[in-house]
């Protein structure tokens, strides 16, 4: 029986946990105050030692990313990625709604570490309450001098601009996010150059996820060792897992890395609803390959074991599907999402995403043929490897994993299934 390991959710749950007064009373801004005396390099080292990995999906070591900034730079920007659009993920919104000051404190610490005077928080346009809360929290922080002209020390400003998106998933891609903030069309940029060299307004920029930054107060206050004591060696710390789908109790659960996935689903989320059997599970947001029930219950909630199973922990968006799920229609939903969200810049993704969605729809509605199924697989291979960003890879993951692992269901939908080889579901 596993339980939550509460670290980030510590102050949540009260009706006023989002206010400065409540947060402060519970210990907010103690850690950031410590950093005012520390040298930026010290803070960076702290974070490096903690082994903190990005929580936005890629899982890149945060401290290491900060060291990519060029030594002699005239300006640095921090962009907080609160675009949270990955299907199945809703943990950043929790932080924004219930403990925004945790984030702001993390922002202050990060700005100190990377010598940033101006941070931008990019929040997806669809967020209403989270936006209200973070804006109010920022106003409070400004009023209290925690943000503003001397927030980083005498004469050292830390400003926070909150920028709302306008409803594009692709703006969660870091360079598209930068373009959006700059007022341009939210289309990703070519990499290289990387944002740490050429980012917002052409300056060195770090983009971090909300949850990633929310971990910083603990690391600074309790130290890297305390942080490392939680979780696994390769994946230290806790994880906010957004569990949704066919479970009794969907919600955001904070667990230490390394707990069994089975425990997350059955102990914390109450198990598959109605006592049904688990059929499939997407571990880390729709862009990660789907796992069969057997595979899902063999992994732990950490980067390495999920990767070994052929998927990714990603953004922690855990979508549970029970035996009543038609996997073809599940893929149809996902494929149409990606077709809708492709920015349209480069040829393979723009054309391929629409094409793939159409073919899946064709198969799902019983009009697809064997040739269509083959086309689907070949297109999924064709769209990867030659694009400006990895959106097309993100689309290919669900397509390939669904078709491979649930092939029988796809074949059962085929119009010419008389010539196909396997039986009905």
């Amino acid at each position, binding site marked *: 029986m596993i339980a939550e390991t509460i670290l980030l959710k510590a102050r949540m749950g009260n009706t006023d946990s989002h206010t400065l007064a409540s947060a402060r009373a519970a210990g907010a801004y103690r850690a950031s105050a410590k950093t005012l005396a520390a040298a930026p390099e010290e803070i960076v080292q702290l974070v490096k030692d903690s082994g903190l990995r990005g929580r936005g999906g890629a899982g890149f070591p945060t401290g290491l990313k900060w060291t990519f900034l060029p030594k002699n730079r005239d300006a640095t920007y921090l962009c907080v990625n609160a675009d949270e659009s990955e299907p199945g993920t809703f943990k950043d919104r929790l932080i924004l709604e219930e403990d925004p000051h945790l984030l702001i404190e993390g922002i202050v610490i990060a700005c100190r570490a990377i010598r940033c005077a101006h941070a931008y928080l990019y929040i997806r346009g669809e967020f209403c309450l989270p936006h209200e809360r973070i804006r109010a929290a920022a106003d409070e922080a400004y009023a209290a001098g925690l943000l503003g002209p001397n927030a980083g020390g005498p004469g050292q400003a830390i400003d926070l601009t909150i920028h709302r998106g306008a409803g594009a998933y692709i703006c969660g891609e870091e360079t598209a996010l930068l373009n959006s903030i700059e007022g341009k069309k939210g289309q990703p940029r070519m990499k290289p150059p990387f944002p740490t060299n050429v980012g917002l307004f052409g300056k060195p920029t770090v983009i971090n996820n909300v949850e990633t930054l929310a971990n910083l107060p603990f690391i600074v206050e309790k130290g890297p060792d305390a942080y490392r004591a939680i979780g696994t060696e390769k994946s230290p710390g806790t994880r906010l897992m957004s569990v949704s789908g066919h479970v009794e109790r969907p919600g955001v659960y904070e667990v230490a890395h390394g707990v069994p996935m089975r425990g997350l689903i059955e102990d914390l989320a109450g198990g598959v609803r109605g006592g049904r059997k688990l059929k499939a599970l997407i571990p880390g947001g729709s862009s990660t390959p789907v796992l069969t029930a057997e595979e899902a219950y063999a992994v732990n909630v950490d980067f390495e074991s999920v990767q070994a199973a052929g998927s990714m922990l990603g953004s922690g968006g855990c979508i549970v599907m029970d035996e009543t799920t038609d996997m073809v229609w599940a893929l149809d939903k996902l494929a149409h999402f990606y077709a*809708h969200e492709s*920015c349209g*810049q480069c040829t393979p993704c*723009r054309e391929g995403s*629409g094409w793939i969605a159409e073919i899946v729809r064709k198969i799902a509605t019983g009009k697809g043929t064997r040739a269509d199924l083959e086309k689907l697989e070949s297109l999924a291979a064709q769209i990867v490897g*030659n694009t400006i960003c990895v959106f097309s890879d993100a689309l290919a993951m669900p397509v390939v994993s669904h078709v491979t692992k649930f092939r029988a269901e796809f074949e059962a939908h085929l119009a010419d299934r008389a010539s196909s080889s396997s039986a009905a579901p």
Partner: protein
Amino acid sequence: MAKFTLNGVEREVPDGINLIEAALLSKVRIPHYCYHPGLSPEGNCRMCVVEIEGIPKLQTACTTLVADGMVVETESEKVIQERTEVMEFLLRNHPIDCPICDQAGECGLQKYYMEHGLHDSRVAVEEKILKRKRVDLGPLVVLDSERCILCSRCVRFCDEVAGVRELVLANRGGRSEITTFPGRTLENPYSGNVVDICPVGALTSKDFRFKVRVWFLKTADSICPGCERGCNIYLEQYQNEVQRIRPRANPDVNRWWICDDGRLDYKWINRDRLLRAEGEAGTHPPERADEEAARMLKEASSVLLVASPRSSNENLFALKRFRDAALPRAALVGGSFRKPWEEDRILKRPDRNPNRKGMELLGLSGDLEGALRTGPECVLVVENDLLGDRPELADLLRGKKLIALASNRDATAEAAALRIPVCTYAETEGSWTNFEGRTQAFRPVLKAVGESRPVFRVLEGIARALEASLAWSDFETLRAETFQAAPALGGLARTSGGGAHAL
């Protein structure tokens, strides 16, 4: 310089250029759509990908600068495979329009399908996304969204070269479309260039659509006579009529562009032409016309020869020699009353004549109005529509015997007692010197219309009738003498080149 290996062969190229340009220097063509040397690179079409040693993912050649020691493969199996896949994606939603599309014959998709595609189609026509097909973007350009491959060259052109934000990529994903910003139209003075740079038939010119298939056109390298910039152009004709003008790349003069005024300034070549010599007594065959002109000039007590900054250097030189040989006491002044334009910072120069500088360097500029006011009895006007440019001169010219050597029935020709047809710049050879002193040659694309002759041949004829000796065996001889007499003209400048603008 940078040394890099291209397809197994070491090459040395200038630093700081992208791989498409670097490969072109070695005569290796890397296919591309969205890249254009006159615009910032975007790398969105994915057609120019190449394999670079040490980098697992294929890289776009347009955004990758050549570096010392780089090892590049443009024809590896992976690259060839990728190109075919990109072609398939580009064609997925492309309408089956070739029979009605103007671009056919100069279309990037047709060309690259044969070179890099040759795949079977996997798309039924009913599956293709339908978009707007005949969108009026502005005074000159029509958009067909279905044909558009969203390379965004047109958007970048308006932003970066024309300096206006008129076009934008609207919507997202497969529903992306080029459109004008709300409330705006594509009406900047360089809008026609987007038609040239569009690799497919998405953007077409209202002036040219459905006129003629491009493979019927015969092309000649020419120069625009619209102003003293001397933009390099292609003149294209069918059935001895100019059908369209396109820019010709010249990195030193007009780069890859021309203004819309210059682009559309060809209809006068085909219309209202003076086909035969006409005098008060009726029409004259050429020899008769020359004799009539000679008679008028000989009988006059005072003669003014009017030169024009629209004439070629060679014709101007011939006019000079004509005066010296046949009418030594005649005055010879060149000038123009054409109202200047507003100069813009892109290409347009205020003086709307192509050869003001050449005329100057040949010593023919002067006070034309003053010369007219001295009251010559007979005025021979060569390629200069004085009355059309300044109708008030009608009073000044009343009572004078006017001989006009003109290509069109302009106001001056109609008012003349004798008008002799001459060839336009589209029908003869010649050179003009632009405002920078760059002398550029133009070549004929049409056969002479009607009975028009090159100016220098008419002058030869009149001289002969005046019993003066003036003759050039061929145009090359005239040109050689012209440049010898006026070394300041500098000889012919190079008028070609400009990077990978042709796909």
